[in-house]
């Protein structure tokens, strides 16, 4: 019944307008090189405070889905992914465009992305309530173990080094400890600054780490000339193309959804695995890298399938499935909602509203993406000397907007400088954000667990779910190391 009643959100003109605006905005932001979907969602987050919960989350969801697709436009037309999840689309997208098949490549990216997104939403609609039922068996020890598992998964998050990702995650958790300790009321690391008593809000840190640090990176690339493929004719994929790729799309949708469900894993890894599997199973694997249409369908279906998948743990357990869903988790909290099993019981309309909004966004960007690809290709050529100062303006307003405090603007600036330095040395900003979002839950669930377990940490190991998550956590930490060891052994 709730499932059907949720569809009512699509009859609300405000929500439909918000979804359309989010879809257009998401594609544009995704298409602009350097502007990724976590950054787009982070920049928009402070302004959703002024909206009701359903339109607010619908806006962010639409930006999330459409932004992931938008990245493929620049990947195909200018050989530079607009967002990291589109990195694998470059391999075959740009060669196709160079051969004069830009329309075919863009069309396939739109269709595969929409199919992947819709598939994962169906899984989300079916799996999230089931997972939420399961979550009733979760107490503080289980949540603590789950946060440990989520942190361990940072090791395999996209980036150059698993150890650097784990260090970044640890720094994020440490940042989350700033402010008054909820259990004892003692101030920690506030240095007498009253604005820090309630802790470091993750929005200014997020904006600084993603947007301002990117601005500094872009300042050094300002004179880089990007080659652009001209689209004279918009020729879409043929029926034969679809017959050739439907298995790839289905396979990548399953892969993307599965990867997205794992805490901390996101579209970039899903896309890379989707691309590799498409090549492995293809009868034309030798054409990959030279403009093979399956090389677009594979990563595009997978990266968009990861968007729905990532919302499963976010909504059912309150554990973000990716950097963007970490921001959306924050948006839900700002709206006074606590994701988890109780949200399914108390606010089913809201949840199904989110699901249907995402479904609408996926269908919308299919049409908008196909119809306006030529127009969006021009957006990617906005001069960076104008684009990034405008982004800076949004950074300042966004950082200020959440608590209306100038201190948050300074925090955003410091996070931007730190983000630039960390990125230079191979640290990705996403694990820091995940750590910052998970930190509070981790500490609170540990404190509650210790009271519940009579201050005996060994009792953690008497609970099967807890033991299972600790084991998964151990595997999450050791797997990348084992993979590296095996690669080293196999290389001559």
């Amino acid at each position: 019944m709730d499932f059907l009643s949720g569809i009512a959100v699509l009859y609300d003109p405000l929500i439909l307008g918000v979804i359309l605006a989010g879809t257009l905005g998401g594609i544009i932001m995704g298409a602009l090189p350097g502007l990724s979907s976590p950054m787009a969602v982070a920049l928009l987050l402070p302004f959703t405070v002024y909206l009701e919960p359903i339109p607010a989350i619908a806006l962010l969801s639409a930006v999330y889905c459409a932004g992931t697709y938008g990245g493929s436009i620049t990947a195909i037309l200018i050989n530079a992914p607009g967002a990291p999840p589109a990195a694998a689309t470059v391999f075959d997208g740009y060669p196709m465009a160079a051969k004069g098949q830009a329309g075919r490549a863009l069309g396939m990216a739109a269709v595969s992305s929409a199919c992947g997104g819709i598939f994962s939403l169906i899984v989300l609609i079916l799996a999230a309530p089931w997972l939420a039922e399961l979550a009733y068996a979760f107490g503080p020890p289980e949540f603590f173990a789950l946060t440990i598992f989520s942190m361990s998964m940072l090791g395999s998050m996209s980036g150059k080094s698993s150890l650097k990702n784990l260090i970044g995650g640890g720094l994020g958790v440490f940042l989350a400890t700033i402010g008054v300790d909820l259990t004892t009321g003692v101030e920690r690391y506030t240095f007498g600054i009253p604005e820090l008593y309630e802790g470091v809000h993750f929005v200014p840190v997020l904006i600084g780490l993603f947007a301002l640090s990117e601005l500094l990176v872009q300042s050094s690339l300002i004179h880089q000339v990007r080659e652009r493929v001209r689209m004279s004719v918009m020729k879409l994929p043929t029926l034969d193309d679809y017959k050739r790729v439907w298995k790839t799309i289905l396979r990548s949708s399953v892969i993307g959804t599965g990867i997205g469900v794992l805490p901390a894993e996101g579209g970039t890894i899903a896309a890379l695995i989707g691309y590799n599997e498409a090549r492995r199973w293809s009868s034309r694997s030798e054409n990959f890298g030279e403009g093979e249409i399956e090389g677009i369908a594979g990563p595009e279906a997978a990266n968009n399938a990861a968007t729905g998948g990532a919302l499963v743990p976010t909504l059912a357990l309150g554990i973000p499935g990716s950097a963007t869903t970490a921001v959306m988790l924050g948006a839900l909290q700002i709206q006074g909602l606590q994701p988890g099993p109780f949200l399914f019981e108390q606010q089913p309309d809201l949840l199904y509203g989110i699901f249907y909004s995402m479904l609408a966004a996926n269908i919308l960007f299919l049409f908008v993406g196909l119809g306006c690809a030529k127009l969006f290709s021009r957006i990617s050529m906005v001069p960076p000397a104008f684009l990034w100062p405008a982004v800076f303006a949004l950074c300042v307003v966004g950082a200020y907007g959440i608590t209306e405090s100038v201190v948050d603007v300074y925090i955003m600036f410091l996070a931007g400088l730190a983000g630039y330095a960390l990125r230079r040395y191979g640290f990705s900003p996403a694990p820091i954000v995940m750590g910052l979002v998970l930190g509070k839950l981790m500490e609170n669930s540990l404190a509650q667990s210790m009271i519940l377990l009579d201050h005996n940490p060994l009792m953690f190991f008497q609970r099967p779910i807890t033991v299972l998550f600790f084991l998964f956590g151990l595997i999450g930490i050791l797997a990348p190391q084992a993979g590296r060891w095996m690669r080293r052994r196999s290389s001559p």
Partner: protein
Amino acid sequence: MLSQNIPPTFFPRVILTTVLLMSALLLVRGLRKREPVRDRVPGIVYLTGVVIGAGLVVLNPLGIYVLIFLMCSLLPILWGERRYNRVLIFAVLTPSLIYLLFDLLLGLRLPPGLLESIL
């Protein structure tokens, strides 16, 4: 430690110690590798950072709109844009749009600073 109530210092210290241990491991691993040749940070990055930092220092007296106007004029010129009429239009349009969207439409009162008497 865990057999009593957890003191407020416990969790941050555990996290910091873990981060330090992982950093030490990273350092040891790095010693075994040859230092990659890293390009120097281009001067424009420092300049951009200094301009933004200086702007934020005077954010309170200037207000957000004047700050955005200044940044939208200085940063494009700093980054090599020489079409000054376009820069001026952009620098006036951006804070104006932000005022329309956030102040008038969404009701977010941004610090007006120098423009307090007008806004």
